């Protein structure tokens, strides 16, 4: 039976989602390093999927992808499809037990971003938006993955912090063992 982490509130998720959307619209077009740009919606979808149910993750991924498609010059529906599927896979793999800035979370998110960016570049190549497959995959795709991974560290830390504030933690000062006086 999959573990579920109940701590993260809907309010904190909405705040993070709004911040990510604002960053996607305002900041993403301004940052381009080595042919890559930051896809904040991909980062948001994947980091949320770590601690979500598979169905919810798919919906979040679809919404994030659709927002990305609507605010960029890319074909509408493609990123929605990729994020929907990838978020579902992440949530199924994590089974709700991951989240926060842990090695397993980072590894899963980075691998998913790499796969998603490669597949996105490949689809753009098939659609004729890109004419050079190698450049689409290893140029834009790889550099975007690196940038997304760096940003995802911050998101994982923030989401992890939001969840441990209200959930169980090993660092509590109290103890269930009674000290004899």
């Amino acid at each position, binding site marked *: 039976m999959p573990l579920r982490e109940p701590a993260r509130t809907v309010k904190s998720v909405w705040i993070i989602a709004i911040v990510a959307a604002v960053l996607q*619209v305002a900041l993403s077009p301004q940052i381009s390093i080595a042919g890559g740009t930051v896809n904040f919606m991909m980062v948001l979808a994947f980091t949320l999927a770590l601690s979500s149910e598979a169905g919810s993750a798919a919906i979040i991924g679809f919404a994030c992808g659709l927002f*990305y498609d609507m605010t960029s010059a890319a074909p509408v*529906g493609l990123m929605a499809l990729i994020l929907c599927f990838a978020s579902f896979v992440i949530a199924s793999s994590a089974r709700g037990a991951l989240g926060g800035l842990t090695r397993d979370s980072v590894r899963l998110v980075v691998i998913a971003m790499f796969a998603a960016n490669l597949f996105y570049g490949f689809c753009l190549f098939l659609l004729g938006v890109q004419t050079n497959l190698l450049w689409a995959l290893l140029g834009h795709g790889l550099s975007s993955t690196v940038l997304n991974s760096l940003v995802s560290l911050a998101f994982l830390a923030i989401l992890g912090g939001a969840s441990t504030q209200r959930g169980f933690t090993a660092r509590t000062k109290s103890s269930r063992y009674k000290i004899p006086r």
Partner: protein
Amino acid sequence: MIVLCVLSVLLLTFYIREGDTGPIHAVRSGVVTVTSPLKMAGSVIASPFNALGNIFSNLTASQETLSDLRDQNAELTAKVAELSEAQETATRLEALVGLQSTYNLQSTAARIIGGSSDAWTQTVTIDKGSADGFTVGMPVCNAYGVIGQITECALNVSTVLLINDETSGVAAMIQSSRAQGMLRGQPDGSLRLEYVPAEAEVKVGDIVITSGIGGVFPKGLPLGTVTSVEKSDNDVYYTISVRTQSSTENNEEVLVITSLNADQVATDEDVAQANDAATAAASDGDSGESDNAAGDSDGSGQDSTADENDSGTDDSEA
């Protein structure tokens, strides 16, 4: 999940098939309009940090690139001095106005507020849209010449596909020899002038200008400078690399050309001569290659073009 995936595929299918005026494009225009204030705010916030990107680029540039840049700097410095004397303009905005008057352009000024939000396309967003009379297909230029073409137009912002995007194509010609071809963006962001017949006269340093064929871009606007010319023994066409006059993404003010005068469009004679040259070149060699140019964004449908005796009245360089 399956339902959402099917919905995504349907959206993608409708987006591709509906053309530029379908409901999905309309929804996207609405979203872009609503989010444009955020994009403008981001542009304002990020502008002080643009210099950091230049520093980073300079640190990672090779010696060859730096050498080229020094040469280019010297060339541009001389050119700037020449232009300053000729037009008595000192600022970029004045240069824009100068370009407008030099080419008698029917144009509206706009400001770049952002680049592409995805890594796979070379676009910029400008701060005016359909409310200002802009429509899809209008050419956009800065003080140094053509930078691209509007591909999406919302109410108050427009998306401009830059000429160095790999899906861009502009009918162009060499200023000195009048040899015509197609200027195309490359995956790495560089420019290449294609379909220039091997018998044409082309050399490094030649200025590339728009040919006006297709009726989208005005005839004679500068596009860039030839940086390398290659041709093997059996080649029908040259392989010509072109460098733009300036980095488009670092410019803030642009002109959107709203309409063309009669003398800014290629004449029927130009088109006929270009077609004759294309036919001749295609019959010499690879005819399949020349067909690739038919889908150019300029809409000219011209393949390889060579026009040694162009009687046009191009005023190529501001």
